């Protein structure tokens, strides 16, 4: 029995959205159920995904399940930081595949503006190994910056190539009404921006945001009754790497992504060249360049060249992040994976509007938690 995605939804990503987390989730849930033949009462289980350090509400799953009218059905919380909702989709897949449930709602959210900037800054310091790395004052951009420096050293990747990832993101952001930053950015603006963690500058980094996403999954049999355009979950891969930077052996690629991709491609029985459109976790520009390589869209070290040659634009070899990616959409941690899946599902249903990749049959989502700690690759097929 195959597992399908039958509905996807998302709120706009923004700052100070004027909604509480329950209302954000309701908006994404309502959007996912729009135009499909399924009511909340027919959903067998829900998986609620976010990064708990940003929540005021303790144990949000119960609250959100109540607000969405999903009680008394099973609900619980899933977390893998920035890839929480991809983890949720993996669990949902297993529920359906095992026959335990027929329909599952995966709801990802984050309201990062709920806590003060000082509180955010305090939490940022605790993303690394708190015993041996956080005492040195590290944070997310520094972690990815160390990968960028090593990649530049080993392969000759340039700051211009990094900036070109953001230029692409800015171009497509203009076509995504749900993106937080809808603005084209020039190469010069990127290169002249202030340093955050060298070599990464302001436009090399994504921004915190508020938002929610929803993915409704169903068994193949059920899916046919719910929608005329189900999208098949063809491959799921997940892997991990050390949380500490200290114990990493590969500093020019994310081993967790390479491993996750290997599993997902094997399960889907496809090669990287068969992917028509991809969403990758561009929390930083270097992350997108490493993703090209780690997913096999080019050889290791050739990611910089791939963006240089505009091969990841629509019309290129493999269009990547044509919704603007995290760099323009914003990154409401728990909602991000679901938002990426939504983009690919719309592409495969032919509903992506001005960013539609013609004839897209196979799509891929690459969603990473932490500085390459949790790797998740999901392959979807029309």
């Amino acid at each position, binding site marked *: 029995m195959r597992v399908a995605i039958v509905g996807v939804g998302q709120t706009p990503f923004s700052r100070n959205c004027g909604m509480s987390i329950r209302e954000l989730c309701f908006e994404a849930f309502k959007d996912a159920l729009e135009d499909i033949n399924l009511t909340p009462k027919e959903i067998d289980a829900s998986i609620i995904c976010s990064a708990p350090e940003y929540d005021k509400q303790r144990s949000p799953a119960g609250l959100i399940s109540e607000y969405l009218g999903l009680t008394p059905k099973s609900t619980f919380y899933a977390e893998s930081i920035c890839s929480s909702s991809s983890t949720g989709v993996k669990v949902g897949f297993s529920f359906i595949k095992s026959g335990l449930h027929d329909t599952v709602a995966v709801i990802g959210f984050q309201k990062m503006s709920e806590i003060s900037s000082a509180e955010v800054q305090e939490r940022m310091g605790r993303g690394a190994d708190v015993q041996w790395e956080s005492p040195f004052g590290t944070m997310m951009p520094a972690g990815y*910056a*160390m990968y960028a420096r090593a990649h530049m050293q080993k392969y000759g990747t340039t700051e211009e190539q990094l900036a070109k990832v953001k230029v692409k993101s800015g171009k497509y952001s203009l076509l995504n009404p749900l993106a937080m930053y809808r603005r084209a950015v020039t190469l010069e603006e990127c290169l002249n921006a202030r340093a955050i963690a060298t070599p990464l500058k302001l436009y090399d980094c994504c921004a915190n945001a508020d938002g929610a996403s929803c993915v409704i999954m169903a068994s193949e049999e059920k899916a046919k009754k719910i929608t005329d355009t189900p999208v098949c979950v063809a491959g799921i891969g997940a892997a991990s790497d050390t949380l500490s*930077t200290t114990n990493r052996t590969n500093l020019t690629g994310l081993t967790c992504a390479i491993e996750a991709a290997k599993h997902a491609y094997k399960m889907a029985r496809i090669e990287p060249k068969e992917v028509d459109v991809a969403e990758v976790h561009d929390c930083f520009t270097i992350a997108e360049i490493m993703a090209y390589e780690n997913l096999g869209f080019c050889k290791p070290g050739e990611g910089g060249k791939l963006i240089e040659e505009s091969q990841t634009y629509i019309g290129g070899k493999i269009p990547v992040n044509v919704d603007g990616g995290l760099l323009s959409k914003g990154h409401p941690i728990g909602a991000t994976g679901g938002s990426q899946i939504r983009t690919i599902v719309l592409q495969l249903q032919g509903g992506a509007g001005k960013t539609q990749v013609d004839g897209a049959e196979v799509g891929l989502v690459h969603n990473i938690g932490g500085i390459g700690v949790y790797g998740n690759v999901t392959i979807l097929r029309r």
Partner: protein
Amino acid sequence: MFVSFGKFGKISYISETKVADFVRYLEEGKIMATRCSKCGKLYFPPRADCPDDLSTDMMWEEFSGRCKLLTYTTAHFAPTGFEDDVPYTIALAHCEEGVNAYALLSKDIKENEIYIDMDLQLTPLRLPNGKITYELKKA
């Protein structure tokens, strides 16, 4: 004698660990690693437990601190408590014993002197707030 790990680093987020003696050695000017008595694997930062054979029989061992720079970044934006220190350079170095060390580069090293593969020495450092840590100095 009980040693609190809370003395390690500018801000220490934890106080209790089985390897808290690391701080006592650091006060004596020694950088210590642990070695698993069963399989002989060396751990730095020190670990109290070896996952390879589930052994908790670990020995302290002084560590040369001689290493080469693997990668680095100069942070211009810092988490809470480190705001006044920016810019500072976070580095990862590969030690001759085969393990990595994550630490700040000494402020004595100018930005234009930094290059990947440069020789560095992991060295204990007393902080102005009375706490203790280690840093990477020019070898």
